């Protein structure tokens, strides 16, 4: 017999290999779309850290994506080493995010939404004003992510690998972060700051932390954006995209790693789907799609399996819960009912030992 851990490792290995084989197996357009999904999945993931997990409504995530993209474009066109470009494209948005967070985290609720809303709103004219670095309204192009000759890969394959490796690493690290100690801390900051504080969790510091992590991740997304789209301009960081990112996060499933991936897919595919149906009514179609998805799955796409499972359970022919009941002679309430039920006098004398 194989041990459980061994089986898990094997499954993980197979999954990783399968994912790494993807770029080789698909056509160019599919690869490009997958890469784009990766870009925005990372952006949504960052938003999830600050909003989904920590409860701070952020309408500014696209700003950090934009800054990351600009830094990448600037570095790449100035011949920086690609490693330096990557690090800079993460750190610079991160530092800006930290500074903004130091101010924003003082505010609660809607006020923080308002302040983050200002980021893309101010970001666009700012990007134009800093035209020496940003290329002004005409933007910056850079094809730094073309496949190197030694790889023998097509550009689209190479770019998808970049997304898979960099994005995959970010997803893994983030998943780890939001699982244990920090996940719990973020969650309590989201639900009750006073309680968080009395657990030794400074709401301010954790909000700043979450916001900064979100902007770091936004920077990664910006780097990948440049690797995949190879062009950025002030339009990249417009408010509308930030709002769509937020919608994508909720549609994918808020406070969920898989949800972030689905959110990225929604961000990229919804407009394509709308274009496919009728390019003249894309707005109408996207609005309808958004409402439809949330109507069916208020918990986001990620809740689909759960909803299906619940439906199946409900549709099971009489039996199920009822049968369980009659056999135990007590209402089915899991362990508690079973353990608590038999008391001599018919009056509970306390909780089960």
């Amino acid at each position, binding site marked *: 017999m194989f041990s459980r851990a061994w089986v898990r490792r094997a499954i993980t290995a197979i999954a990783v290999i399968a994912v790494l084989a993807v770029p080789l197996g698909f056509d160019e357009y599919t690869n490009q779309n997958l890469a784009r999904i990766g870009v925005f999945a990372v952006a949504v993931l960052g938003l999830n850290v600050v909003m989904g997990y920590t409860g701070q409504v952020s309408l500014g995530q696209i700003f950090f994506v934009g800054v990351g993209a600009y830094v990448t474009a600037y570095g790449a066109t100035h011949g920086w080493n690609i490693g330096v470009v990557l690090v800079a494209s993460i750190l610079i948005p991160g530092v800006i995010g930290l500074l903004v967070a130091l101010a924003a985290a003082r505010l609660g609720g809607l006020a923080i939404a308002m302040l983050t*809303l*200002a980021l893309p709103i101010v970001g666009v004219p700012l990007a134009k004003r800093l035209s020496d670095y940003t290329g002004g309204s005409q933007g910056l192009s850079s094809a730094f992510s073309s496949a190197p000759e030694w790889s023998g890969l097509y550009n689209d394959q190479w770019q998808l690998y970049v997304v898979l490796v960099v994005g995959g690493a970010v997803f893994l690290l983030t998943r780890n972060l939001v699982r244990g100690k920090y996940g719990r801390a973020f969650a309590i900051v989201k639900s009750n700051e006073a309680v968080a504080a009395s657990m030794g969790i400074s709401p301010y510091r954790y909000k700043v932390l979450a916001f900064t992590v979100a902007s770091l991740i936004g920077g990664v997304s910006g780097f990948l954006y440049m690797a995949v789209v190879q062009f950025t301009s002030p339009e990249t960081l417009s408010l509308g995209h930030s709002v769509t990112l937020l919608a994508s996060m*909720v549609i994918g499933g808020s406070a969920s790693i898989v949800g972030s991936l689905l959110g990225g897919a929604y961000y990229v595919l919804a407009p394509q789907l709308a274009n496919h149906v009728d390019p003249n009514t*894309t707005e109408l179609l996207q*609005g309808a799609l*958004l409402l439809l998805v949330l*109507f069916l799955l208020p918990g986001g796409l990620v809740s689909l399996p759960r909803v299906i499972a619940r439906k199946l359970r409900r549709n099971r022919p009489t039996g199920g819960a009822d049968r369980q009941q009659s056999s135990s002679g007590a209402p089915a309430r899991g362990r508690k009912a079973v353990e608590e039920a038999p008391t001599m006098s018919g009056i509970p004398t306390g909780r089960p030992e």
Partner: protein
Amino acid sequence: MGQFIQLVVDGLSNGSIYAVLALAIVLVNQATGLINFAQGGMAVFSAYITWLLTEHGLSLILAILLSVLASFVLGALVERLVMRRFERGDPDTAVVVTIGLLTLITGICGWLWTYNNQQFRSLFSLTTVSIFGAAVSIRSIGTFAVIAVIMLFLQALFLGTKFGLALRAVAINPKSAALSGLPVGRLLMAGWGLAAALGAVAGALVAPQLTLTPGMMDTALVYALAAVILGGQSSPVGVVVAAWLIGVVENLAAVYVHFIGYDLKVAVPFILTFVVLVVRPQGLFGRKVVARV
């Protein structure tokens, strides 16, 4: 000096655009606890209805009145058919639903009436009068007056009437409200209906200046949100004052603060709001709600 006064007057008239929308947002916020991103879109839709009616030869006033009525019904329907499902769930989801509504309504407007700019007749003439040496159009004065009336009406509604109290109670705690016999569903519908009706007025006031397009309110919405938060979400007077303040300060900063200029003036309302909120988290006119532990 003449220019200064003119800039202040211009700022007030800009602020008025933000103010009408902000009032509608406050209304929904007080009645449902939500920030409604679709408010701008709904106002645009109402403006199209008004426009359509005038195109068919109705007088403007009549068209606006009919549109206000129609908007009330539509707003109530939107609450009943769309928002109802999300009202007791995750507030983030509900807000995203309003974003979806905004997209949908904008899309519907574009589909029905194209994305071209349509001329919209103004209730008030564009002729100007001189006030303290500044040229002020009758339109600005009229808009100003209408907003003041709506503002006072809402203030009275919320603070003085049983209906207003019930609207607020439902937003704060629908479950307890139901236990006290408040018809929760109908009150929510009424809240949305009123906000939509107010949106129709907003649309009619704003459309002559911005010309009617599906995205007419997009920018105004951002400013309106800032005004809502700066003014204190619960106070109609507060948000209107905040909207005017934003309009004026923005103009003055653009002209007199060289570093800011016309390109970055949009940052001013946000900086202003931030500074105010650090000092007064409840906003200018809002009342602090303590969350006790």
